[in-house]
């Protein structure tokens, strides 16, 4: 691993440790309000200050990162699984199944990602409970984000369909379903892994976008979306900079590591 990638891996590991054990850094709950300290500047009591409702920014940052990372990984898993099913069937079976799947993929890709997200999210109920809003937001992101991954997996499965190993499996009398699940998809694992790792930062950013437009995870549960909403008010940089900086560090580290894994795979 080169130096920038080692730095990225180190940063991501420290962030993961911090969000896995937030009690090591703060004892305050993310939704506890300190009415005597609204919009307080950084101090020993509140290292990153408090927000407009008097909630500890450090605690919200840690719990928000944990939720966004966990949900982002979950959404990426779901969307990669969907992409594997659609792309795998299209690439392996070919014919009319392939044509239908390609048309569906083309349709999904011809609509700009953010346009689609905003429209679908706005059509779903907005007054959900915080826990349900996490599930709805990230499920929707994964259900709308599988198309580009499916295209890559379709191409991989298509090339595998014409490979010697599948020909041999066919000659041995193995059925289509078994060939797909036992021989084609396992061999498409590098493509699946690549799509999964690329999706995680994209989905975290998608939730942040929706949150900034008021359509993401509901308060008081913190997420990158509603943490970044504090940017809508004029705040001193010492208070406002932490959330965007944290998000940038996480996404940049993920991108660096994704590139590193792609280089290693090549």
């Amino acid at each position, binding site marked *: 691993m080169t130096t920038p990638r080692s730095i990225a891996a180190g940063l991501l590991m420290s962030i993961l440790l911090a969000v896995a054990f937030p009690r090591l850094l703060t004892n305050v709950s993310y939704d506890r309000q300190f009415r005597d300290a609204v919009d307080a500047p950084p101090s020993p009591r509140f290292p990153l200050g408090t927000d407009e409702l008097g909630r500890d920014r450090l605690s919200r940052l840690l719990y928000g990162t944990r939720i966004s990372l966990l949900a982002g990984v979950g959404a990426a898993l779901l969307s990669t699984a969907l992409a594997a099913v659609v792309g795998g069937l299209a690439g392996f079976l070919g014919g009319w199944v392939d044509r239908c799947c390609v*048309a569906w993929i083309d349709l999904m890709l*011809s609509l*700009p990602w953010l346009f689609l997200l905003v429209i679908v999210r*706005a059509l779903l109920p907005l007054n959900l409970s915080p826990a349900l809003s996490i599930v709805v937001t990230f499920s929707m992101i994964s259900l709308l984000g599988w198309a580009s991954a499916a295209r890559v997996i379709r191409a991989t499965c298509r090339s595998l369909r014409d490979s010697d190993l599948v020909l041999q499996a066919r000659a041995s009398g193995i059925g289509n379903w078994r060939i797909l699940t036992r021989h084609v998809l396992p061999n498409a694992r590098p493509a699946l892994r690549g799509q999964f790792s690329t999706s995680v930062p994209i989905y975290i950013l998608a939730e942040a976008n929706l949150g*900034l437009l008021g359509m993401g995870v509901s308060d008081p549960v913190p997420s990158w979306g509603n943490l*970044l909403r504090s940017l809508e008010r004029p705040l001193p940089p010492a208070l406002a900079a932490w959330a965007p900086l944290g998000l940038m560090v996480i996404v*940049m580290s993920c991108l660096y590591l994704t590139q590193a894994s792609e280089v290693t795979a090549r």
Partner: protein
Amino acid sequence: MIGPMASAGRRPARRRIIAALLRIAATALAGGLLSATMVRLSPGFGLDEKQLDPTLSSATQEAMRRSHEGERNPLLFYGVYLKQMFAGNFGNSVTFGRPIRELLTERTTVTAALMVWGIAGAWALAALLALPAVAGHSPWLAGVCALLGGAPACLPAAGVAVLLFWLGASAKWMIALVIFPKVYQYVFHLLRHGYASPHVMLARAKGLGPYRILTCHVLVPARAQLVALAAVSVNLAFGAAVAVEAVADLPGLGQLAWKAAVGRDLPVLVVLTLMVTLTTQISNSVADLCSPAARGAV
């Protein structure tokens, strides 16, 4: 011999163009139907808070309930709506209480201007950063350019727009900065690939100047990919326009899409989806036709 051969060569080309046009039309129509179905199935569709107003008579409330009757079946609604649309009647917006044609006329110019400026700005920024990164032969310079090119990609589009809003930047620059990282990545890789190719090394060895190498030996072979990237930029710019117009409160198509979605304005959403799908499909098809490989095939 030449005549029949030429007409035989032209026939598949014509067929290919007709197939592309049919595909564009089918995708756009499917996009419109998809949005109509999604709106129809969304919870709370057809409900109006005015129906709870006790001062309204039962006849008025019944009339309000019946006003959505035509939209209950999405297929039926879509068929009737398309027929009206082809006759030039786009209907009225429920959220804005105005004819959709008027809304589109007003807002298309705003968004189109933003997108054109944004795409031009993003390409200019990408070229300004990618050229020194590739041609500079300095790992430090390449690292700094990669950092500058990658940093905006690590923030959501709406976040970039909010930050630039506080810095007093115009919406054109917001769109430019949102799509710039994606354009930069592609341009950087294309240039790096171009500069590393053997014919460029030969041109260098022959003592050709850097300007001539760039224009004649790097950009010309990469023109097909650059045209394709230009088509992708249109899609990216529209996505960015949704976030930027919502954040900067600009009366464009992006803001219209956002407000129509929140207000579950079925006719507006159908027209917008058709427009966006058509624009994306047409820009992609034009890029395909402009690319030398496609022209060779035709």
